[in-house]
């Protein structure tokens, strides 16, 4: 099993008057090559959970296994964490937390160089990754602070892709992006996932879960409330987990109420819905 959490507890600022328990006994497995979405309220422990994956946070008790690595309190050897971080790439919500170089290409090359790549090699990887995320070649020599917010986010993602991680973790990647930019970025993740990268995506947007995920984790108050496939989750009323009903599901429901005899199975996005309506109308 590539990712396994064994009864993980995590407490911020333990042994001080300011301590707060973020994870209270999390056990779960994530399969290789899955597109896993983690949903839950603000403060439910989503971000804390994903930061255990590359040893940014070490569990207060319990252990996390990722491929052949084990992250646990006694194993604090940094060499081991360093190679784990090549395996698991985390992209944080705000690009401003990681961009610092003079040009975009140098910034993306910074990651590979930290893992021992030569400068030319790293630049080559950088160009390739920037093309993957859809940054035009004319921007390569520009400063990362001159470009738009959406482009900056892409540069940040390219910076992590440069490490060629087997597992890509994204914390709220679409927050603050315009709908078009968000859709493009999600399409990119889908493509990466099709090529075999495990995608773990933390999000508030239930529509993303409905359209892209093949595995869903619902977090609540530091515990895993539900871990199942989206089909199972959306079979029943998701509002009891205080999640919204996805727009597509609402539309399908309305279509059925208005007497349109479509079959709701397998409708995951607008395209599917249109095809289905067209089929019924024929």
């Amino acid at each position, binding site marked *: 099993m590539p990712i396994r959490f064994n009864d993980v507890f995590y407490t911020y600022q333990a042994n001080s008057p300011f301590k707060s328990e973020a994870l209270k006994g999390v056990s779960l497995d994530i399969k290789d090559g899955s597109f896993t979405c983690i949903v839950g309220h603000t403060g439910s422990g989503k971000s804390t959970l994903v930061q255990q994956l590359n040893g940014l946070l070490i569990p207060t008790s319990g252990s996390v296994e990722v491929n052949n690595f084990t992250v646990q309190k006694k194993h604090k050897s940094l060499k081991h964490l360093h190679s784990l971080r090549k395996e698991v790439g985390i992209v944080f919500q705000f690009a401003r*937390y990681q961009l610092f170089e003079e040009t975009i290409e140098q910034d993306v090359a910074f990651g590979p160089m930290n893992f021992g790549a030569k400068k030319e090699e790293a630049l080559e990887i950088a160009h390739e990754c920037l093309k993957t995320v859809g940054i035009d070649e004319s921007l390569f020599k520009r400063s990362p602070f001159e470009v738009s917010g959406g482009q900056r986010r892409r540069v940040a993602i390219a*910076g992590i892709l440069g490490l060629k991680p087997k597992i890509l973790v994204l914390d709220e990647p679409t927050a603050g992006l315009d709908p078009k930019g968000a859709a493009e970025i999600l399409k990119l993740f889908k493509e990466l996932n099709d090529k075999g990268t495990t995608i773990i995506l933390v999000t508030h947007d239930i529509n993303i879960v409905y359209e892209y995920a093949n595995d869903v984790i619902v977090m609540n108050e530091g515990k895993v409330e539900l871990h199942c496939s989206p089909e199972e989750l959306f079979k029943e009323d998701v509002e009891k987990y205080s999640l919204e009903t996805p727009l597509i599901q609402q539309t399908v429901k309305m279509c059925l109420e208005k007497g349109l005899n479509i079959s709701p199975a397998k409708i995951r996005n607008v395209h599917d819905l249109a095809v289905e309506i067209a089929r019924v109308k024929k």
Partner: protein
Amino acid sequence: MNAILGRYVNHDTFIHRMDPRNKFFCLIALMVAVFISYPTYEMTFIVGGAVATLIIALLLIAKVRILDVFKSLRVLWFFILLLMIINVFAPPTNAINIAFTIGKVNVYWEAIFQSLKIILRLVLMIMLTTLLTATTKPLDLTYALEWYMAPLKVIRFPVHEVAMTISIALRFIPTLLDETDRIMKAQSSRGVDFKHGKISSRLKAIVSLIIPLFISSFQRSEELADSMEARGYDPKAKRTRYRVLKFSLADLIGFILCSGVMAATIVISSFKWTYTTPHFVPWWILSLILVFLYMLLTALITAVVRRHRK
């Protein structure tokens, strides 16, 4: 960061409710009591012990855990050790009584007492400031500061602006710490090693931390300025406060107590009081009795105040 040093801890106690302006005054009064010097070492430790008793009792009343305060003193250990060594090898000029000798070096009682005196003052000073910062919100502290600086308005000193700047700076310390933590995490995910490696790569690591920190601070300050302006902030305007500072009974008690302690220490320090240890009781037994008495006194004061509150 486990240290309690300089952080506000929310409780509802007698001391938390005191007026920050008055607390500021009390801090200074007690500082005088801590730093005043006495003609003999015996007096220093007897009066110092009494002041320490009072301060520890106040900390207990304010529900500050003494253990946490000592934990935040950890950084001072090295300093204390250094002080000891310097004092022992460069004794005060009035040193006469030899405690023991190491090799050819005489260690004088005066040297030991001198360093103990400095350590006592240092620890008490930190306890006092912790007492103030742990029981007063930073914003209230700046109000107090603004109030004390008010006379400077006469010479056109921008009192309000300075107070506002200080309160904003204080407000953003935790935010900046969080931000630093986040940036470190983001860069660690890209393989930056902040703790190990060659000097050149560590320098690069620090650059990768500082630049995003600066950029986000500038962005934050611009946003803050915009939002203040959007709400019509004008430093010259006459303003009212949501929480009006009031001088209560608790303040009166605190004021009288602290000024009393200050006055008492000043009076005591002016006495020419000589005391010689009786020969039949060793000095360390006397010290132990004294420490025990002080502990008893601390417990008593705390218990009485706590019961009274209930």
